């Protein structure tokens, strides 16, 4: 009797915890198809205040735009909710709020590689019928990233593609093919500098670079049905280019630790002849105090397999989507249109150095004058291939990174790496 009494508080705690667990238990799985269908059909005509959720507004682009919208729509004000600057955390934050069916996450900014996952979890409003938007003027590759199973789930908003930075003082004409670039490495060797680098540390950047190598060689990673297709001769040729260059020293050994910033650092310090990177390097390499290449670098599309077809850049950037839990979807759709309008896109480009998704803007003379890399980027984006559009993206990118990294380090032959990649992607899709 006495014993029971003393243990009571602990027992109560246990019961309390159990009952709490029972309340919250079901929430974290994917929502069932039927319920989600219901959510997607609701509030299509709803108008009123909404919230726009996006990662860190690096260069103060969003706030002025939101202010502008709010001035014109006093009854449908937009509140800007800013997330962290780190992609992983933006992803996790969105997942948690979708799981909690947060009605205050109306319009969300999703990375191109998350769109399929969120769509398959029935969290994103399909942009069809009443919600449909015009994508005809957008770069086709960007629309692909926003499309899952034939349905458009998001509006492409900003894009990004890889371009080749080269030292025009040492290489007057940039290489058009990979082999040509490799043959120019003797110039780098003579100058005692590294030849080529991209992003080869084991993180998302390696997926981008490995996918570029594979796609450029005509390979693919995942087919239209979501099944892996990476164990092919083309893919092997592509990955082998990177592996061989690393082994030969044409890619310097330290490049295995490079993310975007370390590559930029090496290039700006004059230690690299060629660098694959995003357009952001352009302005910084021209203006950074410590840059030694301010006036001696040029840009070109990534080298291809043959001289007539440039390399296949992977696609960066973000899409805008409407949450199925939003109460004011009509307002959300209007805001989506506003945020992808030509005027807004231009503002994003000039103010934030974020590449537009509208094809026409790449030929806009005033814009090109301000962002001289646009013509090159246009070629890159026209030849771009999105990273695998799959609801299992986190697992797929890990399969690519782990195996490509091991291959580059020489821990396993390219054949083995690709067949492991193939099985790992397969395992990801059938949990």
């Amino acid at each position, binding site marked *: 009797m006495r014993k029971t009494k003393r243990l009571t508080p602990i027992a109560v705690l246990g019961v309390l915890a159990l009952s709490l667990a029972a309340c919250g238990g079901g929430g974290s799985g994917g929502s069932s198809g039927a319920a989600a269908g219901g959510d997607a059909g609701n509030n299509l005509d709803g108008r009123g205040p909404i919230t726009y959720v996006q990662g860190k507004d690096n260069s103060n682009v969003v706030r002025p735009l939101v202010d502008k919208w709010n001035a014109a729509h006093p009854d449908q004000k937009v509140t800007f909710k800013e997330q962290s600057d780190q992609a992983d955390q933006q992803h996790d934050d969105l997942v948690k709020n979708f799981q909690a069916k947060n009605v205050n996450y109306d319009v969300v900014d999703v990375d191109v590689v998350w769109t399929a996952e969120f769509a398959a979890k029935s969290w994103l409003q399909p942009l069809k019928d009443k919600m449909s938007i015009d994508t005809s003027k957008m770069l086709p590759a960007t629309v692909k990233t926003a499309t899952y199973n034939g349905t458009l789930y998001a509006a492409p908003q900003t894009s990004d593609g890889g371009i080749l930075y080269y030292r025009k003082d040492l290489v007057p004409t940039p290489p058009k093919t990979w082999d040509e670039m490799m043959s120019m490495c003797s110039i780098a060797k003579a100058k005692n500098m590294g030849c080529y680098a991209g992003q080869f*540390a084991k993180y998302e950047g390696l997926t981008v670079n490995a996918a570029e190598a594979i796609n450029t060689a005509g390979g693919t990673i995942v087919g239209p049905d979501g099944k892996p297709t990476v164990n092919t001769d083309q893919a092997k040729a592509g990955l082998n280019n990177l592996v061989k260059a690393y082994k030969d020293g044409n890619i310097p050994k330290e490049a295995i630790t*490079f993310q975007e910033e370390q590559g930029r650092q090496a290039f700006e310090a004059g230690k690299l002849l060629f660098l694959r990177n995003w357009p952001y390097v352009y302005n910084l390499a021209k203006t950074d105090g410590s840059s030694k290449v301010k006036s001696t670098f040029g840009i070109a599309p990534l080298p291809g397999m043959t001289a007539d077809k440039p390399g296949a850049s992977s696609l960066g950037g973000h899409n805008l989507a409407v949450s199925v839990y939003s109460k004011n979807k009509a307002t959300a759709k209007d805001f989506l249109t506003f945020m992808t309008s030509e005027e807004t896109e231009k503002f994003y480009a000039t103010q934030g150095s974020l590449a537009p998704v509208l094809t026409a803007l790449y030929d806009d003379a005033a814009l090109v004058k301000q962002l001289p890399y646009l013509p090159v980027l246009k070629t890159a984006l026209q030849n771009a291939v999105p990273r695998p559009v799959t609801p299992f993206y986190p697992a797929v990118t*890990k*399969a690519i990174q*782990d195996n490509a990294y091991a291959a580059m380090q020489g821990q396993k032959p390219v054949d083995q790496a690709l067949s492991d990649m193939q099985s*790992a992607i397969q*395992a990801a*899709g059938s*949990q």
Partner: protein
Amino acid sequence: MSTEAQPRQAVKSGNPKGNKDANKEVGQDRKATTQGRVATLLVAPSLLLLAIVILYPVINAIIMSFQKDSGLDPATGLFVAGGFAGVSNYSHWILQQCSVAGASISCPPGTLGSQFWTAFGTTFFFTAVTVVLETIIGFWMAIIMARAFRGRSLLRASVLVPWAIPTAVTAKLWFFIFAFQGIANQLFGTSILWTGSEWPARWAIIIADVWKTTPFMALLILAGLQIIPEQVYEAARVDGASAWQRFTQITLPLVKPALMVAILFRTLDALRMYDLPAIMTGGSNNTTTLSILVVDQIRQGFNSAAALSTITFIVIFLVAFIFVRFLGANAVESTNPGGKEKEK
């Protein structure tokens, strides 16, 4: 006065606690009943707080670990709830089995499932090395900090600096330091791929962790040293004890309770190490710890991550149990008269 007399006696008897324990036992039985009620009131707030923040999520996670992660319905291309999983989430990790097209195969490289045992080994390696280094260096720091000399407050403030810098900043700082063209290679004239090969990466993480958390050890040990009265040492010196004897026969036994608590909690923390390897290497080159695996798995499916968390919890529990039971971290438990009887 009794404070002075008692430790001196303790030194001679070799049992610093002897005197006090004897004192405490007086009248203990008489009070047992009322003490139970008071004790319940006193520990209740702690238990309630822990129940909300820890027990609830843990039980939640354990329940979910028996559910399958949602899978794709091939007809609609949408995710559907996975249903009851039995122990398959657990066997997935422990046996490293993945299912591909309905068949169970050994998880191929490039899946999280294939990394469980390596992550397990890495976690224990990091824990063993960092805790040993931190204990030794921390003890040394504490001894120096306990001495009276000019500039002691400067020393104490300096020691606190690494611990006070938020881990997010620390990890970035060391990532920056250990970059190929970073200050470490620059200063030492080396060209080591700190984050690009296995052992340098492991040592980079160990160095960063030791730098950051040794102050934690040092402060706890220092607090233990401070409650040893100076007279004890003087008495020992009069008795002709050497510095080493004083260390092993006075300092060590008297500081042991604090030391054990410090080591115990450092071990539990190190076994859950996440930020430093995650930011410095992203888990590449065999630096993936169990917590990194949990985070990666949460992004792929929460229920399987819940199973992994539960496994981690059980592993850590066993380590703590061994610690408390066999390595004498039972400074606290021995208050229990039953436990003391066993000791004697």
